[in-house]
């Protein structure tokens, strides 16, 4: 009986991963893509996206759900890149320059985001999502109207022809793939951007180390139960803000790594989908609103991106329209987020019911002893 139950439990807990694995495996043959191509594509995309997805872990740990406000960090990173392009700072130094300039902005953004989320406890996710829209407005105000008009821009090539506002698409030629090419390892026909993976590994080590620090333990306590943590003397609001600040700063660096790999930047919409992809990836990897680990990130990035690589081709081959594949992968992305949120909320309610029932049973069992006294 218990064996059957644990299998059922395993299935419900990993329903999203299993479902995703099945869809992906089914879609690979119909895409007609070679395994070699898909593997190379996975290596590239792991380097491109993993850092961004890792940025989501700490807020989940602190019980704040999926940090849709990470988009704020992405925008800070883009601001840094715009300045690096403006001053014509290139190469890895250019990336470091962009990251350094983006850091104070993303700390400020993280502080704002954390403070707002503290006022919206219990609905952090929706609020974070809307905050990203709001700050997007401010970002556009600064980049599209103030740059070149109020803030001087050195390089006229990145301005719109009207004289102010940054162009819609920026060519990141100076920094293009500079991190990836810093240590490019070629192994049997595959290109492995070693430097990018080292950066990702360092971040993983940081996350593991951070969880063991006093602050990390505080976060865990806050994530577990805010009132208990508060009474134990943990500064709840401050800890939550710090979790968001770290996440935002990491998202800033993550976006810079993402964009150096892409090589071009859509100034006004490169960040639109950042949180969508990152959140979908970590959920596909088996994380939930309350629990996420580093393996979830890697599994998620691989699974989500295999599907993303494969579906447009599969759509083209099966239905004669690449658009169907494109819509399908977006449907899958949004659907996965919805499904895992639903499964999580549903499971949490069931667990709460079970716990309440268990408590009742325990109190009934304890009652006769109490009565005997």
């Amino acid at each position, binding site marked *: 009986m218990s064996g059957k139950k644990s299998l059922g439990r395993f299935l419900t807990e990993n329903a999203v991963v299993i479902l995703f694995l099945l869809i992906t495996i089914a879609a690979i043959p119909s895409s007609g893509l070679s395994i070699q191509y898909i593997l190379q594509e996975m290596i590239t995309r792991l380097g491109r996206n993993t850092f961004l997805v890792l940025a989501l872990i700490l807020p989940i740990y602190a019980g704040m759900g999926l940090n849709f406000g990470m988009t704020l960090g992405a925008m800070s990173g883009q601001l840094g890149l715009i300045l690096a392009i403006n001053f014509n700072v290139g190469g890895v130094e250019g990336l470091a320059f962009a990251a350094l300039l983006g850091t104070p902005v993303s700390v400020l953004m993280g502080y704002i985001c954390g403070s707002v989320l503290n006022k919206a406890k219990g609905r952090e996710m929706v609020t974070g999502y809307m905050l990203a829209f709001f700050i997007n407005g401010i970002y556009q105000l600064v980049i599209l109207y103030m740059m070149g008009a109020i803030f001087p821009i050195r390089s006229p090539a990145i301005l719109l022809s009207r004289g102010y506002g940054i162009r819609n698409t920026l060519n990141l030629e100076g920094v293009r793939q500079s991190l990836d090419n810093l240590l490019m390892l070629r192994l049997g026909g595959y290109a492995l951007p070693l430097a990018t993976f080292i950066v990702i590994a360092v971040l993983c080590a940081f996350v593991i180390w951070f969880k063991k620090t006093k602050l990390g333990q505080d976060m865990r306590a806050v994530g577990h139960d805010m009132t208990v943590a508060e009474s134990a003397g943990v500064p709840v609001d401050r800890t939550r803000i710090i979790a968001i600040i770290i996440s935002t700063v990491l998202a800033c660096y993550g976006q810079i790594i993402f964009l150096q790999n892409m090589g071009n930047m859509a100034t006004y919409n490169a960040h639109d989908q950042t949180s969508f992809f990152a959140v979908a990836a970590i959920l596909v990897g088996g994380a939930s609103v309350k629990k996420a680990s580093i393996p979830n990130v890697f599994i998620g990035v691989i699974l989500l991106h295999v599907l993303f690589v494969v579906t447009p081709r599969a759509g083209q081959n099966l239905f004669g329209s690449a658009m169907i594949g494109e819509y399908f992968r977006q*449907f899958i992305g*949004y659907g996965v987020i919805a499904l895992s*949120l639903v499964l999580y909320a549903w499971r949490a309610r069931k667990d709460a019911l079970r716990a309440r029932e268990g408590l009742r049973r325990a109190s009934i069992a304890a009652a006769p002893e109490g009565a005997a006294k």
Partner: protein
Amino acid sequence: MPKSTPNIKQFVTDFGWPRIIIFFFLALLFAAAPFVGVRMDASISDVFNRFGQNGLFVLALVPMIQSGCGLNFGLSIGIIAGLIGSTLSVQLGLIGFGGFFGAVALALPFAVLFGWVYGKLLNKVKGEEMTIAMYVGFAGVMFMCIMWLVLPYTSPTMVWGYAGKGLRTTITVEGFYRQVLNEFLAIRIGPNFVFPTGMLLFDGLCAYLLWLFMRTKTGTAMTAVGSNPDYARASGISVDRMRTTSVIISTVLGAVGIVVFQQSYGFIQLYTAPLAMPFAAVAAILIGGASVNKASMVNVLVGAFLFQGLLTMTPSVINSALHTDISEVVRLIVSNGIIIYALTRKTKVAK
């Protein structure tokens, strides 16, 4: 001095600074309009028109807020049902009022069905409704994107000419039911002012019906579920059923809303068009003074008017005054700012 004006203070805290700022901003825009060469009659006509177009979306949010399901970020589910109805109506070649009411009638069964499923789903995830609603809405829209390409529509006004299949991104309803409500009893003053009587009457009728419904036994039970679920359960009301009912009503209103929108706007917009529509409606009702768990008809009226007024006046006034297209950014900041403001307010039980 401040002590002598407790009423104003109370009013300000209740209504909230952001809303007051928006109100004065809009008043300023109207005041400035004649000086920058914006025609007042055309602007006001435009505001009425957009108010009528979008009013039902805002109205659609009321039942779910009242029943405690929060802001319906998944309103696009209802919009999808409406799109199915309107495309079917065009496919069947229904014309004039027949086309409009045909579209509504054909949309209704879908809206009820979708609303029922969507409501059942939201019952399973109490406390997380808004985030999940948003993503269910997104996923639904993307799913329908595939469907619009695949479903066997044949009407030549709707399918891509060269392929002979797959619906166009925008479909004109000219010759079907374009402006049937707007033109009904429309009042024209001068060349630039049209008062869309029929559309506003229809909106008013829907609002009145909802208002009546909220006063029936079921309606009051619904409000009770939202304001105090434990009390409601104790007095024998099925919480889940009430919530499902509210979601169905919201979805139906969303479906009817999009058909009203189309007849005035003149086009059916398919594919990714419905993605952003719920956000505009949510911003509007919040500007009108609603909170995450309390909304009234006054909120709908004031909110839809203020928000649509803002959408109409900011582009025309700001663009002609500053000669830039900055209004889109102003809209982004204002509408999303007000949503954040509402989400971060302490949810106290309103009087």
